[in-house]
């Protein structure tokens, strides 16, 4: 792959159409992921040490990873459904790259669960899944099934991806070395995904402001669920109460930039 290899290249300097034509391509995707995935099978390098976790910490990690799998399954099914709804060729290609990213996240988290001794991952995920996250998944897939591109991109690429970005970053700061390395690769993908969501929705709302009320409505419908998901994830990670408002800031700022507060 050669496009995007030039370290000085900044697609943000391109005009809008050229920007979309550059970044929403297979070539750009591969140029982006190549740097942090090459030499890291399943998201980690062979040299990264496995440290022994005590029983309580290991059990919390399994719960956290099970919920990451729920979130990534929602994102995989959401993104694959959105390929069909994408309003143009470039958006379809971007969503196809997101499909493979989400599937990779699911794969690396399932593999990490295997490292931790979980043999029946399906059963473990069912047992430990946060009900609020399952509700969020149902809501997201209902928007996809309803053919609502704007609302589904908002739920998936803005809300879900921002939540994941925040939680993964917080987790990576204190995780064991292998989990932290896996999370760093995932975080790099999430940044690209919510960048797409904000850019696509921002342009569509600027072109047609009548789209905004529906997104506002979706946000209000999902607010309580989002709060519960955040609380559950941060509880599992034992994040102090005092730090939580700061962690939610990323999501709030994105929503504010879209004019949806």
């Amino acid at each position, binding site marked *: 792959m050669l496009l995007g290899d030039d370290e000085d290249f900044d697609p943000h300097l391109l005009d809008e159409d050229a920007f979309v034509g550059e970044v929403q391509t297979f070539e750009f995707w591969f140029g982006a992921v190549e740097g942090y995935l090459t030499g890291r099978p399943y998201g980690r390098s062979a040299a990264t040490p496995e440290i022994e976790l005590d029983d309580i910490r290991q059990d919390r990690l399994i719960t956290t990873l099970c919920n990451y799998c729920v979130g990534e399954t929602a994102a995989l099914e959401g993104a694959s*459904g959105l390929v069909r709804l994408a309003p143009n060729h470039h958006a379809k290609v971007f969503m196809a790259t997101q499909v493979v990213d989400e599937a990779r996240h*699911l794969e690396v988290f399932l593999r990490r669960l295997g490292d931790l001794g979980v043999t029946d991952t399906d059963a473990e995920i069912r047992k430990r899944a946060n009900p609020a996250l399952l509700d969020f998944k149902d809501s997201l897939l209902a928007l996809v099934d309803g053919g609502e591109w704007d609302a589904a991109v908002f739920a998936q690429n803005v809300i879900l991806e921002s939540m994941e970005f925040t939680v993964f970053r917080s987790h990576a700061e204190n995780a064991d070395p292998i989990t932290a390395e896996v999370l760093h690769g995932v975080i790099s993908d999430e940044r690209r995904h919510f960048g797409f969501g904000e850019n696509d929705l921002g342009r569509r709302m600027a072109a047609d402001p009548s789209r905004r009320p529906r997104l506002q409505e979706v946000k209000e419908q999902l607010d309580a669920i989002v709060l519960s998901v955040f609380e559950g994830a941060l509880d599992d990670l034992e994040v102090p109460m005092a730090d939580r408002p700061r962690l939610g800031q990323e999501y709030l700022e994105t929503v504010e930039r879209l004019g949806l507060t």
Partner: protein
Amino acid sequence: MADFLSQYSIQRWLEMCPQGYLEDTVYGRGIDETEAEIIFENESMLDAAIQATVQLVVGERCALAASSGLVNAAPDYPSKHFLATQTLDEARHVEIFTQRLYDLGVKKDDLEDLISDRVNPHLVKFAEVLLEKVEAGDFIAGVVGQNIVLEGMAFSVFEMMEAGNRQINPKFAHTLRGTIADERRHVGFGENRIGSLIQQHPEKRPEIERMQEEMTFHMLATFSLAFSETPTDTVQTDGEPVDAEWHGTNLATATPEEMEAVLADTVLGEFKTRLGRIGLEYQTPKIPA
């Protein structure tokens, strides 16, 4: 099943495809490779190249819709992972064949109108039969239609085009070799994954065989119309003899009828073999196309 599905992980796909045979390529070809000059010197040859590439874009758009639509219907994580990689493979194919249209001089603003004007109507029908199964969330029928019938057809069409372009248009032949490698993986998954599911659901056989019959009808009609309208997208010369042998036919000198016959025979032969492997019997279309 678990062992064979482990061969279709995202990690293995990354190593084989983007980090493997696509390494050092741009839009599926070498960075310095360009379309053969001879195409631009001959109006009918350029027209044939555009006509054929439009059909490739439409076929790949159908494959993209089908593979992404099947992710949610997949019954297990490994199948979801594989279909995710197939989704991106198909998106890449859409992208590289669209790029070929631009390389042939099509303007971006004219793309959709060109596709609407030039798409083979039988190919649209072929796609509709498949996408109906995908829309219904029918995983078994969807995978047979997509990974055995559509991909099997694409595999042979790409092989024939690659053979016809290898010597005279290496850039396009290079692009096609990458897609052939992808299609081989897709067909392999279809055969390996679906055989056991059909054994578990024998009641699905008649419906799937009907779908195969209908898709085959439209496929043969696609070939018939394509070869009657245009000489195919293989670069032909009047001077130097060209080595473009495929399944016993020299594509550089064959008539359109001979090309249609060798393509149809090859695709149908492959269908029979692959359907037999997954426990289905090939159904000959009732009305000859």
